[in-house]
């Protein structure tokens, strides 16, 4: 394995696969803070050169966190298809990139090689790709999943209605749900981030959303994004849940900090298939995002993008209905500005899709980042073009509970309008029945929450 190269008469020597991966990453403040980033623009390029000539087998034999030490590494290696890997293990990362981008490679080929790649190999390829590369490659892949509705069909774009309230007031939450539905948002899930994480309160919100969906016969899913163990307790107590949520990360240490493990996730999914209200088979909803390992001080010397890829390798074990990438939620110490946030969104969508996941994107920003609404909308349009399955839907883009900005009901409707996308099949019929949509377009009635009163 070659770990050195000469550029402009200067020799660059790297110590490990892990170091090459980190230094080949596009500039991000989180990698700089953990002192993993390249020291100069040329050193970054040198790392990309070394990476481009690295064989997939070199990466396979050098996992960034050892198999014995880390549960995420074990899931990634135990789940991959060795027959596919054998076919491609002598490719270089550069050859893999060219293969992904060539005309003759489509969704079937990408789905197949995705089964034979470790998450580090997928991260490595993305490090050699520009924005258009990432969008074009992502466009080739669209992965479907079924809960109560089918997500990921070509030409269809779904949204989570996110009706959060600072003190979980059920009537206030319901008002935002009605507003979202009246804009055609809510076909991915009606998902509430609770302020109060108690089992009683979570159960109450699950019942409220379930009853509302029953009453208006809305073909969708409900979810309350409490900690997974809280949701499991609620489910055991008879709460109606159609989608179970958890945040995940790319190292075992970070997942320990989240209070989650393979064992807990196995139990949660089994419980959902037994007691959940959904048809399935996809009953899990995961959230991820570059930087969580850095802020939990558990990055293990691995760069944020590679850790994010490993999170997808972990996620796919439970065949989720939705994987939502939320880069930009933490703050400027991980993603400094709009440019870094947009890059992270494009990388993550591509990497998730090559893992075979039904990916959605939440282009977000906090108020202490150097980003604004314009950056967020650019990220939203680009990832729509790249074929994201879904986005969030927040009233006016302002989450009044979590204090950050995400895509609004207005943005959701605009993304559909821009590319002529339709809501999920069953949900579109319901919107037509309610008089909210006609021929894929919002009607005069749309945007008025009191059509439910």
């Amino acid at each position, binding site marked *: 394995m070659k770990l050195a190269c000469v550029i402009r008469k200067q020799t660059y020597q790297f110590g490990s696969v892990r170091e090459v991966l980190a230094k080949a990453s596009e500039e991000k403040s989180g990698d700089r803070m953990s002192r993993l980033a390249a020291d100069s623009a040329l050193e970054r390029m040198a790392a990309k050169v070394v990476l481009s000539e690295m064989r997939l087998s070199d990466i396979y034999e050098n996992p960034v966190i050892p198999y014995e030490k880390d549960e995420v590494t074990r899931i990634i290696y135990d789940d991959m298809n060795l027959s596919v890997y054998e076919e491609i293990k002598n490719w270089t990362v550069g050859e893999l990139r060219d293969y992904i981008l060539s005309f003759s490679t489509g969704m079937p080929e990408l789905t197949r090689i995705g089964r034979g790649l470790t998450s580090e190999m997928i991260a490595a390829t993305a490090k050699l790709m520009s924005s258009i590369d990432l969008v074009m490659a992502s466009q080739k892949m669209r992965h479907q999943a079924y809960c109560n509705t089918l997500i990921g069909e070509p030409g269809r774009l779904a949204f989570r209605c996110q009706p959060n309230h600072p003190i979980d007031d059920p009537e206030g939450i319901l008002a935002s749900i009605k507003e979202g539905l009246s804009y055609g948002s809510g076909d991915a899930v009606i998902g509430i981030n609770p302020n109060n994480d108690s089992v009683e309160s979570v159960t109450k919100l699950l019942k409220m959303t379930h009853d509302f969906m029953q009453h208006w016969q809305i073909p969708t899913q409900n979810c309350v994004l409490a900690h997974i163990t809280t949701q499991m307790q609620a489910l055991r107590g008879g709460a109606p849940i159609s989608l179970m949520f958890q945040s995940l990360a790319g190292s075992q240490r970070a997942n320990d900090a989240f209070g989650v493990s393979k064992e807990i996730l196995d139990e949660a999914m089994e419980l959902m298939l037994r007691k959940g209200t959904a048809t399935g088979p996809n009953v899990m909803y995961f959230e991820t995002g570059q930087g969580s390992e850095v802020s939990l001080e558990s990055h293990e010397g691995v760069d944020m993008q590679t850790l994010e890829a490993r999170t997808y390798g972990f996620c796919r074990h439970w065949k989720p209905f939705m994987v939502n990438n939320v880069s930009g939620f933490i703050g400027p110490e991980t993603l*400094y500005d709009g440019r870094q946030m947009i890059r992270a969104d494009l990388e993550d969508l591509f990497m998730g899709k090559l893992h075979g996941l039904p990916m959605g994107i939440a282009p977000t920003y906090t108020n202490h980042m150097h980003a604004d609404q314009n950056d967020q909308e650019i990220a939203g349009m680009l990832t729509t073009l790249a074929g994201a399955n879904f986005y969030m839907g927040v009233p006016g883009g302002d989450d009044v509970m979590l204090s950050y900005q995400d895509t609004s009901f207005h943005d959701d409707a605009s993304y559909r309008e821009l590319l002529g996308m339709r809501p999920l099949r069953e949900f579109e019929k319901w919107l037509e029945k309610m008089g909210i949509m006609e021929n894929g377009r919002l009607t005069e009635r749309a945007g008025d929450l009191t059509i439910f009163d």
Partner: protein
Amino acid sequence: MKQINLDDLVQRVLEELTRKDQDVIQFPEQKQRGVEKPNNPEALERAMNRTPARIGIGRAGTRMKTGSYLQFRIDQAAAHDAVMKTISPTLLETLQLPALHTKATDMSDYLMNLDSGRVLSDESVRWLEQNADKGKDVQIIISDGLSTSACEATIPDLLPALLQGLAMRNISVGKPVFIHRGRVWVQDQVASIVNCKVIISLIGERPGLATAESLSAYMIYKPDANTVESDRTVISNIHRGGTLPIEAGAYLAELLEDILKYQASGVKYMQLRAK
């Protein structure tokens, strides 16, 4: 020479003055109903009063209407400015607060390098060693943190109330200091220099759109090398929509007296108090 008709002039000046007044736009601070013909107007009003979320705002095509779009951008701009602004020197002068610095060289260093805001600059260390009151019961730090607006909106009421409350309880206080771009952990270093019993930091919180004026208080009893996060007592959401600054001042004085009594803060203090 051009003849000036005095009556005309007076008339024109008057017109100008009244027009000036009408020319000032009073942009509404409350969210505006944007749905023109709601199915149920009463239900809409009730819903909009039930949540601070931006609902009932209507649409232009699929986009926000001009008014609600500008309102959103104003709220975000205020939140962003609260982070990026430096504190007004007049405020520091009025409150007679000496201004110290951390190792954060500028705002971007402060935001990107968490460690830089946790350590005082060498100059500020020397200043404290030479000028600070030593061996008092309480030392107060005020810091802009992530919101200058929070300091400007709360400190003028909060600090006098807190000082008065401590004086009433005969608790000795070192001269309060302001620390530019400070994070919570810098209080440990200050405590070790001034040798106080309890140190309290009043720091601006990460601003949201609903309010950019929220402040938190972090207190710790005799921090040392073995200090962990759960040793700190935290009171958050001090602003006009949460705990009022004046009330917070009185409450914090009471809390500090208690911490001094139990000689512990954070989880340890809660456990001792429960006994």
